[in-house]
């Protein structure tokens, strides 16, 4: 079954002295993770997102649509990227989520709604 692993991290971890080195190490961790996923034969996809400051949110309220300059929710941790992996169950998904490099933040694991007759 498919799971989305949503990486919510504190962007400020990459600011200031040492921030660039931390970013480099984190990216190297993602490269390694992708290699491990390939080696394990697990179908996956994923993307890295630009910082939350670049986000625009389209809000709908009973037909009224407004634009909001910023991410959907203003929190310390922002969605910074995601993976979609296809594994047998939650335990395996959690195991891969643990291996995602996140200096400060967390990874939300959600099953993808399966497409099918009931889609």
């Amino acid at each position, binding site marked *: *079954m498919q*799971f989305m692993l949503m990486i919510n991290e504190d962007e400020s971890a990459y600011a200031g002295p040492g921030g660039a080195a931390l970013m480099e190490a984190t990216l190297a961790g993602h490269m390694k993770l992708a290699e491990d996923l390939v080696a394990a034969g697990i179908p996956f996809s994923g993307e890295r997102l630009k910082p939350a400051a670049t986000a625009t949110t389209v809000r709908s309220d009973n037909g009224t649509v407004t634009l909001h300059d910023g991410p959907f929710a203003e929190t310390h941790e922002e969605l910074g990227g995601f993976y979609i992996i296809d594994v*047998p*169950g*939650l*335990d395996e*998904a*959690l*195991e891969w989520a643990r291996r995602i490099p996140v200096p400060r933040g967390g990874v939300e694991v959600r*099953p993808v709604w*399966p497409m*099918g*007759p*009931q889609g």
Partner: protein
Amino acid sequence: MAARPRVVAALAAALRDLDAAEDAFSESEARCLALPEPPRDVPAWLFVAARRRALDGIRKAAAAGRHAEAFAQVTDMADIIALPEPIPDERLRLLFICCHPALAAEVRAALALKVICGLPTDRIAQLFLVSEPAMLQRITRAKAKVREAGIAFGLPARGAWPERLGAVLLALELAFTAAYADAAGELAADVGEDLGAEVERLALLVAELLHDEPEAAGLAALVLLARARAGARLDAEGAMVPLSQQDTARWDFARIARARALMEAAARAGRSGPCQVMAAIQLAHTRRAFDGVVDWSAVLRLFDVLLALRPSAMVALGRALALAQVEGPQEGLAAIEALPAGRLALTRPYHVARADLLAKAGRTAEAAAALDAALALGPPRAERLWLEQRRHMTGAG
């Protein structure tokens, strides 16, 4: 019905749905009880009848165009015709599902009590001191998460074992605490008794199924030792009797012996842990029944170990009381004063411990004030009666 855990577990594994397993079991249980003569093998009969019924339901739904996916998962239609068949023992799997770390810690014990023990929701709600609708919602949400989130119905991989076992033991410990926190006070007597019995059954089941995990044995021993003293916990007026003053003739020595055997077997594994240490502390107290004394320096050493394994204000409080027995009330009081009061001052054990040591140190007025502080926190009936007796004896103010 004693067959329940095995049958529900087997059904859940076969149907991969906790609700369907529970419903199918209730239905086949009712039909079994209505039979003119009980079947030769009750668990097997229940399992086969319930599973057939549930699969019929799935097939009908599939024919109606719904749940086509569920139907596709049922590949073994042919083998359910054979009767009787042995029930695969899936209790351990079911326990690991109910206590999956992806479920909130406080809901795991409730789910295990509901699904494995079949305790009604209103009783579980009473145990965890929440309203019945709130508990029903928690359990419903947890079951939905099990169904939708991809929680596997298989046993966890060996590498994940420590974390998963920890979640199981924590759930049991929570249920145990809920059963024994109130000294037969607020809970209706039958609920307390039921829960104590159910938690004991579950703890012994875990110890049996995970016989090479010493902490599982330690927890079962802990539950047995608490149950062994159930008959001595209240006096004729319904007031709580503290451990040190209980009539040891009213203890259940068969349970104490069983706990001791479990702990000796656990000790041979050579891996200690908090459950084993807590059980060892309880076992040290039972020595009073055999030679009239408690070896307080041994209890103090055990508290030192427990404090290192699982540091908490409550453990530190227990250690201070043991220290007072070894070195005197002044030392015990000093140890309590050294603790960060804050939230601890909002708990009854803190004030009760201070009252005890202050009284022993001859500081009667302060002891009375500490008892008043404990009473002001609204203890359950049995504890309130006991505190009032002590307050009366201090005589002050």
